[in-house]
């Protein structure tokens, strides 16, 4: 049982960063001569005014939740899968290939949808496999590998869009032709424009991963590898296979998220179709200190703010990136306060049976885990660098 004092500190540290980041955002709004309440009103209306808007929120929520679930898995294994954005993109490419070249008619549309989703999962896994292979076999840190592969998949997509897959008329680097209707994921209705099957898929993925992480040997192995690779190896865990499986699971989920972007949001393949959602997923997961349980909820809040922010521009002539500023600050303050709490109020941290408060920091050399043939070097499990992911470029 926690003492009342510990509980008070815990709740205080939960609310304080939210209050502070709201205050800073409000100060920013006041500084440009606007009323913060107006902004809140605009955000709220932009996200929840009617069921159409709500559908838009879900269209962000689906890919964001998928990548966040995947990232919980890689973080649990101590891996910083920055390559998640590229894995989304590779999933989108695979789905786009299928959408254009698999000739299934209107009547077989649901089957085609399933095939394309499966293809996108394979695409995401493929790109994640490359990161994993570089990391495990060659000792290339997954952050460096991920960044490089993100760039590479963007080059490939631009080549495809402006080359083999360019529209017959008016070809440019804007995007491919819209995919045939059977390939596209259907809207539930024009009043609620989102895809219910994908929502169900997200919920299923959430429940399955939750069970896998907390009730199975695989989940325990991930945790062991994430916390101490060398000990896990000596205790008999197949560390390489475990790390790779984390990459593959995350890649599959990211790939499916990518498919949603091209098969629903855009109806065609565009450059940067992943839209920074993978990076936003990193923020969601960091914000939650890798607690999977809260991922759908926080992802929903992020999606609502993002969707709502489009209205800032229309209604208030404020730049919609204000929403990104708010989210970025929120993550920074949460991580900052987590650190403050740890230093000044140890012992009041939340019960943490299903999360790791600190993913291990990546080692810049990436040498720490070549096992089997290469000497194990000693490196500490230092806590995570206390800053959020890189620049956010979340766009619709």
């Amino acid at each position, binding site marked *: 049982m926690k003492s009342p004092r510990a509980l008070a500190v815990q709740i205080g540290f939960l609310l304080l960063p939210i209050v502070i980041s709201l205050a800073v955002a409000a100060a920013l709004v006041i500084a440009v001569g606007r009323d913060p309440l107006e902004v809140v009103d605009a955000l709220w209306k932009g996200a929840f005014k009617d069921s159409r808007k709500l559908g838009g929120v879900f269209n962000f929520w689906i890919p964001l939740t998928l990548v966040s679930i995947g990232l919980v898995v890689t973080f649990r294994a101590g891996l910083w899968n920055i390559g998640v954005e590229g894995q989304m993109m590779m999933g989108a490419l695979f789905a786009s290939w299928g959408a254009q070249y698999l000739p299934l008619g209107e009547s077989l549309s649901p089957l085609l949808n399933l095939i394309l989703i499966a293809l996108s999962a394979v695409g995401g896994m493929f790109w994640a496999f490359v990161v994993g292979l570089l990391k495990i076999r060659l000792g290339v840190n997954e952050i460096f590998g991920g960044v490089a592969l993100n760039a590479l998949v963007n080059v490939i997509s631009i080549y495809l869009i402006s080359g083999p897959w360019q529209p017959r008329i008016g070809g440019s680097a804007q995007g491919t032709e819209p995919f045939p209707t059977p390939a596209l994921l259907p809207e539930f209705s024009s009043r609620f424009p989102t895809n219910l099957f994908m929502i169900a898929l997200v919920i299923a993925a959430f429940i399955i991963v939750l069970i896998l992480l907390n*009730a*199975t*040997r*695989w989940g*325990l*192995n991930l*945790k*062991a590898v994430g*916390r*101490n690779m*060398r*000990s*896990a*190896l*000596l*205790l*008999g*865990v*197949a*560390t390489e296979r475990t790390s790779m499986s984390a990459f593959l699971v995350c890649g599959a989920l990211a790939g499916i998220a990518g498919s949603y972007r091209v098969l629903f949001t855009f109806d065609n393949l565009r450059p940067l179709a992943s839209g920074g959602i993978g990076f936003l997923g990193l923020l969601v997961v960091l914000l939650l200190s890798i607690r999977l349980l809260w991922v759908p909820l926080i992802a929903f809040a992020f999606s609502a703010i993002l969707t709502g922010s489009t209205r800032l521009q229309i209604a208030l002539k404020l730049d919609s990136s204000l929403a990104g500023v708010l989210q970025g600050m929120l993550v920074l303050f949460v991580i900052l306060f987590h650190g403050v709490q740890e230093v000044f109020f140890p012992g009041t941290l939340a019960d943490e049976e299903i999360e*790791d408060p600190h993913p291990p920091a990546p080692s810049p050399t990436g040498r720490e885990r070549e*096992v*089997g*043939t*290469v*000497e*194990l070097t*000693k490196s500490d*499990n230092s806590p995570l660098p206390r800053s959020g992911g890189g620049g956010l470029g979340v766009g619709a």
Partner: protein
Amino acid sequence: MDIELRNIHKRFGAIHANNDINVKFSHGRIVGILGENGAGKSTLMKILSGFQPADEGEILIDNDIIDYTGPTAAIANGIGMLQQDPLDVGAFTVLENFIYGGVEGITLKRAEAAARLKDLSRRFGFELDPFQPIDNLLIAQRQQLEIIRLLALGVETLILDEPTTGISADQKDILFDALRRLAHDEGLVVLLVSHKLEDVIDLCDEVVVLRNGVMVGEMDMPVSDDNLTSAVIAETKQQLVTMMFGEVLEAQQRPQYEIGAPVLITEELVVHDQRLDMQPITLTAQSGEVIGLAGLGGSGQELFMRACARLQRIDSGALSFDGQSSLKSSYRQLFRRGCVFGAAGRLEEGLIAGLTLTEHSALVSDDKLQIDWKSVEKQTASRIDRYRIKGRNSDTIEQLSGGNQQRVLIGLLPDDPKLLILEQPTRGLDVDSARWIWTQLLERCQRGAAIIFNSSDLEELVTYSDRIFVFYAGQNHEVPDVNQTTIDELGHMIGGDFNN
């Protein structure tokens, strides 16, 4: 300076680590602090040296109550502690390490400091090159540096925690001479925390003994000049053991059993790392056999052991485990065939901080995807019982004391391994715990396991090994007749003196 500790209490959760300790340390005396693991001696020394505050109680220096927190404040009050692993900065040179604890003003005054360093080293017969990087130093030299650094800071009470671990016989003599001069000639208080009773008897003027957080006795040591016969030593040792454990320990007997077929064979095995190019090693370990590797830290024995477990690259030569060449195997493949490597750093390699005892059990229980938590909980409880671990299923491993962590590690070993490769299996454990660990290990030998282990405790090597290999600067020599070898001879061999 004279120190008095009054009514010191310290609790860690339910454990009363220091329970009303009252003791005086007088200037010019070398005092041994004895006790089994978890008796509270490290806690007491950490309180005295400022690393942690006491819950209750007072520290008096020359009859004044002094209140300080933090090691820096303790040093300012004249009390300095030499940690078991010296707290120096690897990339720095000797001189830089010497300077960085005691900078006053902005400029470093290197020349002045270098002169001071040389002067102090000469006084104590230490050989320290001011411009060597710390990484190139032996443990003994790092200790020497830390001692003179503390002296330069004006320390009048010097606390040493297990200073004779990992140093050779000659280096120990130099260290003890220096400590005697500091205490007897210069009037310092020297406090020695050690499990090695011979060292304590040799060096100390008196000892205080702790048991379960309570001070259970004080005793003067025989004067360490000429009348220190082996009979006197043995008798004193027995008295100390009785005080520490409250009972007389029987000498440990090796069970009798047959040595079996070869388990591990190396032929002309060559390994290297950045610091060491090793001579080829040819060795055969047979089922039931215990092979001890002696040597100062970093002499190549660690590299060799890791190479055997396939945790270290092998340059050339042959290696076979259980009848199959294992040059191309991974550690995990060997592990599944019954070869287990136990590393010296428990929380760095071996156990996983943040995981509970139950989770550790689950990791080694079986391979099924579904974990049967109920049966794992049961297994864990029976392990705790069987291995006398002070802890609960739901405790995370870092909540346990070092000795208990070691017990967990031994408890996690498979029951019937073919080969155990163990780095310092009893490092930092008291006599009783170390014996207990060996009982467990020898049981496995009796069932057919071969053991290869290294240790900086020469007595442990001589007691348990069927054969001993001495490593010195990458060379290796088999000790010809282990039964006839004394600890003293072995101490000279690890210093590179093989003709003795």
